[in-house]
């Protein structure tokens, strides 16, 4: 037998005895219900099986090279403490299934309860689910949930929301039932245009969706929006890409948000080319029965001991079937656990400190290039750890030069915002050292001088 034998324990003797018990002569006889004309006569066209050493060598060769990075835009390079991968590698966590049998899943269930609590604390809201797929689909689910509640047609979507998130929302909605109207951003401060928003608010509005910090890294002024939206009977949905920002920013829950839905990747989850990530979803208690996703609740057992169970499952696909609040089954359980462990390590002081370090590093980067001729910060609004830089020249050329120095200098915005075709989104986190930022600024200076 090939290299795969280590994953399939059957010996020829085992097989013989089992066939005998079953009462058939050969293994093929077990497939007699499959019409012969469809049974494959030749083997599948797949590469020959590799043993572990060759497999590792192959994958090692495929590994991309490591560079200093100033990339953000919905995925962030943050420090992951060693305890996070260590603890989630415990096989009782990662080889377990969904906790349908609570007596033997108290580990998973209690950790989800802790996760739900932390997400409420982080976003300032009243109830959280056990996770959705990612920030984008989470925000889309928020829009669908608002529709279930208000049954209204119009969605006012800020143009400063992550473009991929907006595309996911467009994909998720039923265009016969819902209509998206974009609220522009202001060219000066990079915030959503509040006046344009107010002008569009009326009783046909289902929800206003705004992201803070927004895709440009600018911190939105959420105050007052909630009140206005509620006056017309709509819902306020706030999204976010960078969860660490809420280490220092006032959470959307303080601004009357009805649903807060965003990305939790920053909380101890590796970049991993865009997934698996963590869709955070929180709302108010009064909406709990229309919420999508798993919920863990506290209860007691026969002897009065505290325990945890999946609850309010009647919202979900396996019971409500065609009337479910969502079709989600498998979610991002292990990623939610990573976030829980990460936040347990960092705690109250740590989350605040890492947020401050991000803010400070970004400010340092801004100062480093403030004196350079040929580039300028585009938006005047306050930012967290990302900002938009306008370049006099072709951003792709500049990035090309930086790549030679093993620096990925930023994210060109032209493909997302055609009007920002000379602009880069620059992200600085606690993982960019002063030396790296200085090097980045120096290379940028050289490129601009050459242009």
């Amino acid at each position, binding site marked *: 037998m090939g290299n795969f034998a280590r994953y399939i324990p059957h010996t020829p003797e085992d097989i013989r005895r089992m066939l005998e018990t079953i009462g058939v002569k050969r293994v093929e006889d077990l497939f007699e219900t499959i019409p012969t004309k469809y049974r494959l006569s030749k083997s599948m066209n797949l590469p020959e099986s590799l043993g572990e050493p060759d497999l590792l060598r192959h994958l090692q060769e495929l590994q991309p090279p490591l560079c200093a990075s100033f990339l953000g835009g919905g995925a962030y390079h943050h420090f992951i403490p060693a305890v996070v991968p260590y603890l989630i590698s415990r096989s009782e966590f990662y080889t377990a299934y969904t906790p349908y049998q609570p007596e033997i899943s108290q580990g998973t269930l209690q950790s989800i309860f802790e996760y739900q609590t932390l997400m409420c604390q982080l976003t300032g809201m009243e109830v959280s689910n056990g996770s959705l797929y990612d920030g984008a689909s989470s925000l889309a689910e928020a829009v669908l949930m608002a529709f279930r509640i208000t049954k209204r047609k119009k969605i006012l979507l800020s143009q400063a929301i992550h473009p991929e998130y907006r595309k996911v929302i467009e994909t998720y909605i039923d265009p016969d039932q819902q209509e998206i109207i974009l609220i522009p951003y202001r060219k000066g401060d990079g915030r959503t245009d509040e006046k344009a928003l107010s002008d569009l608010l009326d009783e046909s509005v289902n929800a206003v969706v705004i992201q803070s910090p927004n895709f440009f890294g600018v911190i939105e002024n959420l105050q007052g929006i909630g009140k206005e939206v509620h006056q017309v009977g709509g819902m306020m949905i706030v999204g976010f890409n960078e969860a660490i920002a809420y280490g220092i920013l006032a959470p959307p829950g303080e601004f009357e948000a009805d649903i807060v839905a965003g990305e939790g990747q920053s909380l101890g989850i590796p970049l991993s080319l865009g997934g698996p990530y963590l869709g955070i979803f929180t709302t108010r208690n009064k909406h709990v*029965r229309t919420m999508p996703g798993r919920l863990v609740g506290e209860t007691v057992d026969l002897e009065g001991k505290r325990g945890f169970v999946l609850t309010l*499952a*009647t919202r979900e696909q396996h*019971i*409500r079937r065609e*009337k479910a609040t969502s079709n989600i089954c498998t979610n991002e359980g292990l990623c939610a656990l990573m976030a829980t462990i990460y936040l347990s390590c960092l705690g109250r002081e740590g989350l605040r400190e890492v947020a401050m370090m991000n803010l400070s590093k970004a400010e340092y980067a801004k100062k480093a290039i403030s004196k350079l001729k040929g580039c300028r910060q585009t938006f005047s609004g306050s930012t967290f750890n990302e900002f938009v830089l306008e370049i006099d020249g072709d951003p792709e050329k500049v990035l090309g030069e930086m790549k030679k120095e093993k620096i990925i200098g930023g994210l060109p915005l032209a493909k997302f915002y055609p009007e920002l075709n000379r602009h880069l989104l620059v992200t600085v986190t606690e993982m960019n050292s002063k030396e790296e930022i200085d090097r980045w600024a120096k290379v940028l200076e050289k490129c601009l001088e050459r242009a």
Partner: protein
Amino acid sequence: MKFPEDLLYSESHEWLKVGDSTLRDEGGRATIGLTDYAQSQLKDIVYVELPEIGSEFKKGESMGMVESVKTVADVFSPITGKVVETNHTLKDSPQFVNEDPYGKGWIIKMEIKDKGELKELLSFRAYQDFVPKEEE
């Protein structure tokens, strides 16, 4: 299993009592709930979703939902009518539907639109025959 004689029944396991004991006008209203059989099938009820006061339903339309831990069941309107009252106590005590389905566990009061429809409902005997026998 209880089958009170003064009630009418639907094949979807709702009961209907003509009249409203809180009013002097007896004929125009009906009180509606789920039968003892229905609650025994659903087991422990955890939540009752009630319709808005003033909403109108045709006979056979779903008016609301009753949830247990593992199932959800519609409450179908046995007649065509308008909702005039709902049982708020079920919000904190959904178990009344289990404990006292014909009394404290009443769900909805409606204004009857078409008295003729009452003839189409089952008598307690007909409903008793309709209900599957307990496998004991």
